[in-house]
């Protein structure tokens, strides 16, 4: 399996996700600088990491979506290469049009860094096959702009297609307004593209993939990808 992590000026979770990938893959992923247009042909997975690409000036992810490397990412995604966007990476993927919807400022207008519980909505994808259907997992969020928005018709389509990957929930899996930390529509914490080959999520699975950091609920996501993509 061959994986790459994109590095934008201002990315700050690039190393963290590379560490998690290495633990699951047994080898280091490539780190791809934002200016590069030479992306290896045989990549199986591209990760767009968290951080503040280009300072998140203008709008979170808006400038990164137009960087040279993202043209390549779009072409690969169109060919079915798996793409994972975490936090700022999710914002970038929506800005790049690879995922539906948009991420707005959190409902209470503050940065939120804490563990949250998520329900795993689908387990038939390369990203989530390592989880059980309906499983509740605990992973952290750390964002200012994680309030997922889609208008009514888009939301209906996303739900109808089963594109929701994760929802904010209580510890026992109840999805309600009380567990909706940032105002996201339908408590959406992560979405797939229609084909289920691109995933964007606000929570950081790479931050709880090591028992010394207090939990490993994020690790099956990386293990799933390795299992699915190892040739």
């Amino acid at each position, binding site marked *: 399996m061959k994986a790459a992590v994109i590095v934008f*000026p*201002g990315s*700050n*979770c690039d*190393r*963290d996700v590379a*560490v*998690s990938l290495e633990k699951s893959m047994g080898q280091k992923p490539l780190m791809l600088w934002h200016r590069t247009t030479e992306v290896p042909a045989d990549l199986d997975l591209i990760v767009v990491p*968290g*951080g*503040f690409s*280009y*300072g*998140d*000036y203008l709008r979170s992810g808006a400038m990164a979506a137009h960087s040279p490397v993202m043209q390549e990412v779009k072409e690969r995604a169109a060919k079915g290469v798996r793409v994972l966007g975490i936090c700022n990476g999710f914002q970038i993927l929506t800005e790049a049009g690879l995922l539906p919807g948009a991420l707005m400022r959190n409902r209470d207008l*503050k*940065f*939120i*860094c*804490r563990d949250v519980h998520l329900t795993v909505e689908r387990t038939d994808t390369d990203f989530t096959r390592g989880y059980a259907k309906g499983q509740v997992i605990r992973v*952290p969020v*750390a964002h*200012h702009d994680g309030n997922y928005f889609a208008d009514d018709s888009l939301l209906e389509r996303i739900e109808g297609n089963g594109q929701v990957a994760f929802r904010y929930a209580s510890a026992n899996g109840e999805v309600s307004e009380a567990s909706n930390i940032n105002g996201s529509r339908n408590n959406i914490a992560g979405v797939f593209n229609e084909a289920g080959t691109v995933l964007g999520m606000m929570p*950081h699975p*790479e*931050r709880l993939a*090591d028992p*010394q*950091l*207090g939990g490993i609920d994020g690790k099956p996501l990386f293990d799933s990808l390795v299992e699915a993509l190892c040739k």
Partner: protein
Amino acid sequence: MSAITPEIVAQHGLSADEYKLVLEIMGREPNLTELGIFSVMWSEHCSYKSSKKWLKTLPTKAPWVICGPGENAGIIDIGDGLAAVFKMESHNHPSFIEPYQGAATGVGGILRDVFTMGARPVANLNALRFGSPDHPKTRHLVSGVVAGIGGYGNCVGVPTVGGEVNFHSSYNGNILVNAMTVGVARADNIFYSAAAGVGNPVVYVGSKTGRDGIHGATMASAEFNEDSEEKRPTVQVGDPFTEKLLIEACMELMATDAIVAIQDMGAAGLTSSSFEMASKGGMGVELELDKVPMREVGMTPYELMLSESQERMLIVLVPGKEEMAKAIFDKWELDFAVIGTLTDSGRMVLKWHGEVVGDLPIDPLAAASPEYDRPWEPTPALPVLTPADVEEKPWGEALSTLIASPDIASRRWIYQQYDHMVMGDTAQRPGGDAGVVRLHGSNRALAMTTDCTPRYVAADPVEGGKQAVAEAYRNISAVGGLPLAVTDNMNFGNPEKPRIMGQFVGACQGMGEACIALDFPVVSGNVSLYNETAGQPILPTPAIGAVGTIEDVDTMATVAFKGPGESIVVLGGVAGEQGWLGQSLYLRELCGREEGAPPPVTLAVERAAGDFVRAQIRASKITACHDIADGGLLVAVTEMAMAGDYGAMLAIEGPNLHASLFGENQGRYVVTVRESLLPDLLAAARAAGVEAQTIGTTGGFHIFLNGEQGPALADLRAGFEGWLPNYMAAEA
């Protein structure tokens, strides 16, 4: 006709005597640019002129100290070829005027102090003091400062893992924002600021220079008055994105052999960075100011020398490395300009399009920077209160009140706005005794904390100074860390008042005694004086930042009770008749009194208890540990119960129960131990000369005392977690 009038001299914060010295050193009247340079170099902020005499008395040496005070940050050897680089610095005045930017640039400045030495920042902490919750500005200041710290640290991608917050009316007009950064470097790849090599290029990197922050250092060296808010334009504006790029670019350059010396441009910007580099290296420097990257047109040499624009560094390069270095800064889209060369003249020569616009001697200016032995008077001793002097309230109600009081209530509302997990090594998050960050790729970790109890320092500066150091020692020990060294951030009022100067002198004495007894040297620090508004000084606040090492992060201790049926033991003993209620939060929050002498610190006991508890943690003999601090024993037990979600059944007998439960006697810890291991623990404590007393068992949903059911954990938690968010949400 003289261009420099006494008014201009006064506007630059120089006294008439100091100006006489300027004339002597220059041998002529300075021009405005030169006067500005004297002004900032001799400001209290840059020269430490009132504090130097006393700071010199602090212990700064130990076998593991690589670099003590005087450089950008202190450095200690942490083993495995690694060094921890850390410092704490104040940004009090700017944060009061413009809380978001003031706090944000405070974080930016301290980060640069650390990475300029070759260390990658791995953690931030902050020690904050705000006015009374009832004061109309407090909410606005809390909100702005917290957002500013988060806004900067989160974007830069360095986790904010710890800190402390107090509220007190003495800070109503003068809040304290002390930011600390801890970095890790290879011990054989540390960078210093002393310039060397005649003819070597002096390079400017980072952001362009604008007109922001001119005279910030002078502002930070004056008392506040009603017009202080007009100083808003002297507050700098931060750009954490550029800082992030600057960190990465500097790290990349530091991996080569191109750097002779490097220094960040902090307070007093280009002036102090170039002066310090040249002065430390015994060099001269010639700067072509027109080469400085500028943000706006029409800037003058005066403005360029005094601007405090953020995210800038000055580097002396090995000749011939300019192209290679420039390529790195180009990659990170940062400015890079050769703006001067080193000379052997011993002078700073400033040129503007070829014309000399300033020419000052470096050593005389630096060496002649005034040093004052300010008159001081000791703080009068306050009477010792006995338990009988303090009214006894029902314990359950007292506990519920204390746990939801401003100085004890949960800081979750604050630390949830800080990214405390980025970099993937945060092993202990905020909310415990110390933040713990793993050394990347290893099983070892750094423990870090900031501590000070200003009400104790005000009541008795010597004991209070000791206590600040001792509490930091205790918090590092309580997670299993070996305390190695401290940084101090001395926040005091106007040193020209003997009473205030006496607080400073006393605190230094107490801190020094504690640092010696605990093998805990001071390796860096910062002084912030003139923290007064309209003549009202703050409580003296010598904030201590401390760092220690944990050998195996898997054995780290946390405060949370781990299960039911475990024994609860107090190390250092239940105070009983000796319960110390003077200056306690019980006395303040329950009785409305801020009185008496503060609890004394017995350093030998402190040391023995710390060594004992650390050994027990490292041997995995105990299951939870928490030091006893604000609020006393019952508050400490309750914090452990809430964190673990197990109640406690306690048996603590005797008259004056309130003094046992809420006395703030020092040098103590609460630990839990599996029942089967209890006899071993008690025997080991006896052998180590540490008093150990079993006070109960974990379990249930309440705090029980002597068979009486006290408050439910759920209610205590509601008060503890609710106070700050409810306060912040309420209308002023």
